[in-house]
């Protein structure tokens, strides 16, 4: 017996937006994932995603600059701005020599694997995207800023391709912003390749308002001796899922993932990472610090896959969470799948309250309890960004964290 799936309102909307026949067929057949789909066990998307807003019609060019100006820049970046899903070349800074930018409207993308709901939505609801080609040997201290501002209740799909050549050194900041009350839906996919011997920092700064849906996916391929640091700060959004998928395909590749998730009342933030070590001698180090307040719900799923030929893999993963209220909730699922026999893999997850002995020590020095708690929470997350070279950017991130803690702590 084959009973047709009864679609939810969000699924009906997506089907009506239908840009890709393959994606329509897939969504019709399987729907959005529920908790029965393992990859979505803690984020029941079918249940949580009530509606999908229509895509923005046309961006009001006159409003764009003023809207962007309401947000302070994080650092001195070469900005490539998007608003409500569209690229705004008029506001783009001139890109440095060695960086080639091209823009594709209505990019078509493949719906991907069955549990890739973010890819499916991107494919069916559509996307625009930049292609960034960074030539061999290109070295910049000044980051490139991919900023997406959502200032209306609209669907915004982006699908960027970033190809970084050999021996390059560059930082790219992907920033997502919207104000409280804006019920936008951002679906942001980036496919990133890092070439041999290149050293790259990729930062995702998600600071949406309290009503936004954000589904992000960063798919990465690392070549030989590539060094990539992915920095992820989630400090907003109502329903957020950020996926980071990494294939280490070249020997000597090193990946560092540093993340902070600040999950406030009414917020659901899920970070799901898959690190695939496919060749010998690759290393990875993944650390997340999470703070959950009110009735916030946080999720971390960290998968490490070591293929049979990937001997001498060294992969470390840690996820530490502070729950600041009785209703706060955090689910952490580390998952190791190892087929090689000579590897070092470790994972650890802790969920705690503030250490009473630390608190007493600070209070015994005269620091009142609320101040002492705030100091300890800040210390717990700020530490993640200690080694960041760009001091302006580091200060901006710490500023975002402090602001969030002041409003939610």
């Amino acid at each position: 017996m084959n009973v047709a799936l009864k679609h939810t309102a969000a699924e009906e909307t997506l089907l009506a937006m239908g840009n890709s026949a393959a994606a329509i067929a897939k969504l019709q057949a399987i729907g959005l994932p529920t908790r029965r789909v393992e990859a979505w066990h803690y984020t029941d998307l079918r249940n949580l995603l009530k509606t999908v807003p229509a895509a923005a019609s046309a961006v009001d060019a006159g409003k764009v600059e003023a809207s962007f100006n309401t947000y302070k820049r994080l650092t001195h970046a070469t900005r490539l701005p998007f608003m409500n899903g569209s690229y705004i070349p008029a506001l783009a800074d001139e890109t440095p020599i060695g960086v080639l930018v091209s823009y594709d409207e209505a990019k078509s993308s493949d719906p991907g694997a069955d549990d890739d709901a973010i890819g499916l939505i991107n494919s069916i609801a559509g996307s625009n995207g930049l292609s960034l080609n960074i030539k061999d040997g290109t070295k910049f201290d000044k980051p490139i800023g991919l900023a997406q501002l959502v200032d209306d209740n609209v669907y915004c799909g982006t699908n960027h391709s970033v190809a970084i050549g050999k021996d390059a050194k560059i930082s790219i900041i992907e920033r997502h912003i919207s104000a409280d009350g804006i019920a936008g839906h951002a679906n942001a996919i980036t496919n990133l390749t890092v070439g041999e011997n290149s050293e790259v920092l990729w930062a995702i700064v998600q600071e949406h308002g309290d009503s936004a849906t954000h589904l992000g996916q960063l798919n990465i391929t690392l070549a030989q001796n590539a060094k990539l640091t992915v920095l992820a700060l989630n400090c907003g959004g109502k329903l957020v899922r950020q996926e980071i998928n990494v294939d280490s395909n070249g020997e000597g590749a090193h990946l560092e993932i540093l993340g902070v998730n600040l999950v406030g009342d009414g917020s659901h933030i899920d970070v799901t990472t898959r690190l695939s070590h496919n060749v010998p001698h690759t290393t990875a180090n993944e650390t997340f610090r999470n703070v959950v307040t009110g009735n916030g719900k946080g999720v971390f799923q960290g998968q490490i896959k070591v293929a049979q030929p990937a001997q001498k893999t060294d992969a470390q993963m840690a996820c530490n969470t502070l729950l600041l209220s009785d209703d706060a909730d955090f689910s952490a699922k580390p998952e190791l799948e190892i087929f090689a026999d000579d590897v070092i893999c470790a994972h650890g997850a802790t969920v705690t309250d503030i250490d009473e002995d630390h608190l007493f020590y600070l209070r015994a020095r005269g620091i009142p309890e609320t101040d002492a708690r705030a100091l300890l929470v800040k210390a717990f997350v700020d530490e993640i960004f200690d080694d960041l070279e760009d001091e302006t950017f580091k200060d901006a991130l710490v500023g975002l964290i402090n602001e969030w803690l002041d409003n939610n702590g």
Partner: protein
Amino acid sequence: MIEIKNLHVKIAEDGTEIIKGLNLSVEAGEVAAIMGPNGSGKSTLSYVLAGKSDYEVTEGEVLYKGKNLLEMEPDERAAEGVFLAFQYPMEIPGVATMNFLKAAMNSQRKARGEAEFTTPDFIKKVKAAAGGLGISMDMLKRALNVGFSGGEKKRAEILQMALLEPTLCVLDETDSGLDIDALKIVSDGVNALRSPDRAFIVITHYQRLLEHIVPDSVHVLHEGRIIQSGDKDLALHLEENGYADVIANAA
């Protein structure tokens, strides 16, 4: 300065009674040493004075400058001038020592209704105090006590004491884990703070520390009570004969 009367304290969690009728009075300007064997209640006494919530006072009172100390929160006690130099100072990752010092000093000043230090004034004060204790500015930029050696942690405690200018200093086994050079630096730091307005309670296991910080009075703590008091010669007697005969005499 401080008057402890018939103090009884138990561990809040399991109800074990640790302090069983302790009486002690320390005057301004006095350095009182408290000695005693392991398990006699020395550290418990220091924690109770600082206000740690793991302990429950079941009887007695503690008057500090005439006020009921036991009713105050730990940070209120600190602002009133009580300072505990911890036996095991906490390592607090992510909190830079300088930021911590500034927060502590200014919180206390604020609580007392005094103006907070400006950053240049604060740095000047810290530099002056740190130099004498052999503490580098580099060390102060690091997270509080994280990766500090045993000696560095104790010196950092004395630095905090010097900067916070308390009126009652409780030193809990400040000599533990110190080599002879570090002991000298720490003792000199303490001696420099001795003044007619300030009282010290120096808790120690050994006479060694008291050669450097010479006490005005020595009290033997055993099974939660002071069983004998005397002058500095009592410490010498304990060093030579151990606690056994003092305990036997008291029994």
